[in-house]
């Protein structure tokens, strides 16, 4: 089970997690500390990663929002969902929906491939995030 430790900060009046510690594979690697504020600043747009509305993958509102006025309002107020809000364990019956691990890494690789040895050597994984215990 994934454990996220998030420290909230205020950015333009919106409370977002400052740093997120991802430590669900701490048997193999040291926990990964993800600087969420820094990455949010670099991305410039929350929807770049929290793509629940910005990509074509979800086309029907009711897939996430119940068609009941109160429930719809409540869910709409939630704003940007964490990756785990939609992505969980991979199921072969829904191969178009990446599992949580792939969802995380795909976002990382969009920018990090080519930085250091990531993408040219397996050592790149340890250099970038996964320091060995």
């Amino acid at each position, binding site marked *: 089970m994934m454990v996220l430790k998030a420290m909230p900060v205020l950015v333009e009046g919106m409370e977002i997690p400052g740093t997120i510690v991802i430590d669900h594979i701490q048997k193999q690697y040291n926990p990964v500390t993800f600087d969420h504020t820094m990455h949010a600043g670099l991305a410039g747009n929350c929807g770049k990663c929290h793509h629940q509305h910005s990509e074509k993958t979800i086309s029907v509102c009711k897939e996430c929002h119940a068609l009941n006025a109160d429930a719809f309002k409540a869910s709409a107020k939630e704003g940007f969902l964490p990756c785990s809000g939609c992505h969980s364990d*991979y199921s*072969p*019956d829904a*191969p*178009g929906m*990446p599992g949580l*691990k*792939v969802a*995380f*890494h*795909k976002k990382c*690789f969009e920018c990090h*491939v*080519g930085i250091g*040895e*990531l*993408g*040219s*050597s*397996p*050592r*790149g*994984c*340890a250099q970038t995030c996964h320091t060995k215990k």
Partner: protein
Amino acid sequence: MYKNKKGQPIESIEQNPSQESSRPSRGISRRSFLSVSMLTGCAALGVPLQAGALSEFKGWPKSYGMLTDFTACVGCRSCEEACNKANGMPAPDKPFTDDSVFRESRWPSAAALTVVNRFENPKDKTKPTYRKVQCNHCLEPACASACPIHAYTKTPEGAVIYNEDLCFGCRYCVIACPFNIPGYSYESALEPKIIKCTLCHVRVSKGQIPACADACPAGAITYGKREDLLKIARKRIEDNPDKYIEHIYGEREVGGTSWLYISGVPFEQLGFPSNLPKKPLLELTEGYLSAVPVIFTTFPAIFGLVYSAMKHHTKKAGKEEEHGHLKEDDNE
């Protein structure tokens, strides 16, 4: 229950009902193989198979497969490591974090069911392309059709699996495979063994997904129904025409394979055979293969007879010659 040579049960075979009902409880002996060959040979003499008489087979409906997207792979070798562990294979000489293995081209063998090779990316020299190689699990596998003892099975789930208890080590499958995949273990001459990817048939039968797909962090290996994977592959190519070449490798090659690939680099540049026919190899070889049992059974008998007749003749001639010499000696 099926047992392997160490006496451990083989779940994958037992869970296949078609095999369970029709196969004996222990591996077939060499003697019973010969008697089966003899019968098959006789049957083949009487009713020869006709090439091209097969109906078109588009694969088991709803069968599963894999989609490898080479544009997503980052060469982390997690798939190789997961495969090694899932199959209980010995650890390699170099650790999986070692990238020096990329300096040479590697191929699956008895020591590794899958390997990743690095290729130059002509579009972007800073981002190499990686190619994962393993058995492609053909819809109509040439290895299975070449195997005289039916040690191979194409399961309805998609995997091409192999039963080492039946194998007698002829290695026809090694020669028949258009992708040069089955590896031969030379560890024991008496207990032959072919080693290749099983699409993690045992894991899948337990409700898990294949180890490599489970381990891949990049989303480069996707396990799912082959028909869904084809749709995903088509959509990715359609949405990103600059990123991908317009070819789903395995969709039609040799009649289709359960393992599919999409790439940003032409497949022939990644070492994929590009000259394969679109129809199953079985259709090209079955005429010849139907003659194999006949040759196996009748040729030894014919040549044996010819040999004994010749030997008998030589002995007789030799005796006559000896007699002649003796008579000459007497005359002296």
